[in-house]
């Protein structure tokens, strides 16, 4: 499929689900979608369009938690980013691990660093932070404050 065909197919197939569409450049497309349709769209893009899952970026923009799921279609050099916005107080989103295994690590990472809850994610253990790290403190949140009073932030010179 060419780039134009993919864009029109996505637009017509999921017309009710797409909130915003930004054609940034020849190889970059940003698409804001409704959170509940994430799993169907991701499955379609990964399985039917044979895209490769790059990664997901979680962003705390102070009003929402945004998650961007980046997919690349290598044959036509197109990077599609699906943006979902979830509630900042109680961020919950469907897990994509049932669609492809590659999503496992990044979801565990976002769960720790941003406090996003992934429904259907089988593995809820910590991936990066240590066991002493307090529950409910997420370092990549915009309101993160240092909790450790023993930490030394002084070079001593």
């Amino acid at each position, binding site marked *: 499929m060419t780039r134009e065909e993919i864009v029109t197919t996505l637009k017509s197939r999921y017309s009710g689900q797409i909130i915003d569409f930004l054609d940034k450049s020849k190889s970059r497309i940003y698409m804001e979608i409704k959170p509940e349709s994430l799993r169907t769209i991701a499955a379609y893009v990964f399985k039917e369009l044979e895209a490769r899952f790059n990664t997901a970026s979680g962003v705390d923009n102070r009003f929402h938690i945004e998650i961007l799921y980046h997919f690349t279609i290598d044959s036509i050099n197109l990077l599609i980013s699906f943006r979902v916005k979830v509630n900042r107080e109680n961020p919950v989103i469907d897990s994509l691990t049932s669609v492809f295994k590659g999503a496992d690590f990044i979801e565990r990472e976002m769960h720790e660093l941003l406090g996003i809850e992934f429904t259907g994610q089988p593995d809820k253990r910590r991936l990066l932070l*240590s066991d*002493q790290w307090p529950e409910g403190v997420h*370092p990549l949140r915009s309101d*993160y404050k240092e909790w450790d009073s023993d*930490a030394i*932030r002084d*070079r001593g010179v």
Partner: protein
Amino acid sequence: MSITLNALLKSPWVFHLSSGSCNNCDIEVLDCLTPRFDVERFGIKLAGSIRHADVLLVTGSCNRKSSARIRKIYEDHVPRPCVVVAIGECSLSRGLFIDSYNCPLPLDRIIPVNVYIPGCPPKPEAIIAGVVKLIQRLKASV
């Protein structure tokens, strides 16, 4: 000079410990052992296990998860006498990671350090010079 220390200085076996580094210092440590620099001619050898080591080479900025292990390794596993060498800017003062949420303490607040080798990363020549200085100082002190 005690016999153990004398033996240690003749052929110090080093164990290399990375506490959250970027690999650069670690590779340069390893480089010292390969043919260009070849520190084995001075009797310095990389030990396969912590329990065989005389010198602990620590690199990296000591993040929360690994600093607990470092403390445990130093207190329980290393045979005495043991000297600790901090290699690279990260293990000296944590370098640019000083403000990182996951690097709360510098290495010398976790375990005592005998020699500091600065650099990001220190060249193999600097590492060799640091180890030589350490041996000289230990010889002078006893």
